[in-house]
């Protein structure tokens, strides 16, 4: 298991906008923002000790229950991405967190993604408590992230009256 990164926010994921992610509007398609964000979720789960090997070894899985994305700025093919992650809340089975996607060179916020993730038992494919090695890691990260201000995009209600 990798050494726990208690930087706040978690700031480990980097990517580049691929050609296949561009749609007929000439920018990264809405679905591929989530492809990029989901890779940042893998990086988060790696911190918990619940990433690829967790599923490969048939121990467990993590499923997303709910996702909310705000699209702030367009991204073009080849743009470099930096994604940071902040844990907002957690319980025995779930983690509520937020990714922020930035243009890695220009620095602007391109999108945000709020998510609810749940731990899953490999055999039953039903929710189960986090494994004993993951829980203290989640708690330490949550404590480190609790000092961060809550992102203004968290807890948004969708509508067209409010903007």
């Amino acid at each position, binding site marked *: 298991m990798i050494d726990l990164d208690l930087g706040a926010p978690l700031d480990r994921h980097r990517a580049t906008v691929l050609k296949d992610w561009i749609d007929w509007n000439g920018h990264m398609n809405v679905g591929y923002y989530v*492809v990029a964000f989901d890779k940042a979720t893998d990086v988060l789960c790696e911190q918990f000790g619940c990433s690829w090997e967790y599923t490969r070894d048939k121990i467990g899985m993590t499923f997303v229950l*709910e*996702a*909310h994305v705000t699209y702030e700025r367009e991204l073009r093919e080849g743009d470099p991405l930096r994604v940071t992650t902040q844990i907002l*809340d957690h*319980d025995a089975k779930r983690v509520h967190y937020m990714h922020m996607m930035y243009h890695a060179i220009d620095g602007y916020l391109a999108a945000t993604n709020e998510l609810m993730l749940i731990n899953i038992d490999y055999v039953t*494919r039903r929710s189960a408590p986090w494994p004993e090695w993951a829980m203290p890691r989640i708690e330490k990260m949550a404590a480190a992230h609790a000092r961060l201000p809550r992102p203004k995009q*968290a807890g*948004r209600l969708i509508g*067209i009256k409010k903007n």
Partner: protein
Amino acid sequence: MSATLPYEMPELVATAPLDIHHSTVRPEWVDWNGHMNVAFYVLAFDQASGAFMRNIGLGRDYVDSRSGMTFVLETHVTYDREMREGAPMRFATQLLARDAKRVHLYHEMFHADERYLAATNEVIVMNIDYASRRAAPWPRQAAERLERVWEAHKHLPRPAKAGRIMGLGSK
């Protein structure tokens, strides 16, 4: 924009809800958990939003004729059931609100054979001026079509899963 759009309009469908988009879970949409990955639900829903836009006259021709574009501002997905490779999808789409530049859509994704609800998606889509890439009012023909859909949808009950705020207290 008041000019007539330079292409032929499709026949308008104004059923409530709309049932105009069907698709299939592709192999490349499946992840290491053996089910459709979260991102590809969003892609599949985006194609359902595309079907809504095409219905009001703003499909690919709208972009190719350099008349305009539509951008998604915000999206909210609930993942209700897993979907496997090859699963057939049916989408039901309800117009929840509209204004001069934006629509608020609600999609439900069903397994088309087994009929279970697989996911829901609320989305805000905005009309964009092609040249400036900034928000602009709907073209007149699209606005008229949007009103006809609104007339058919405005009395539908508001979906229970619309308007969710995420949190550990939410069910």
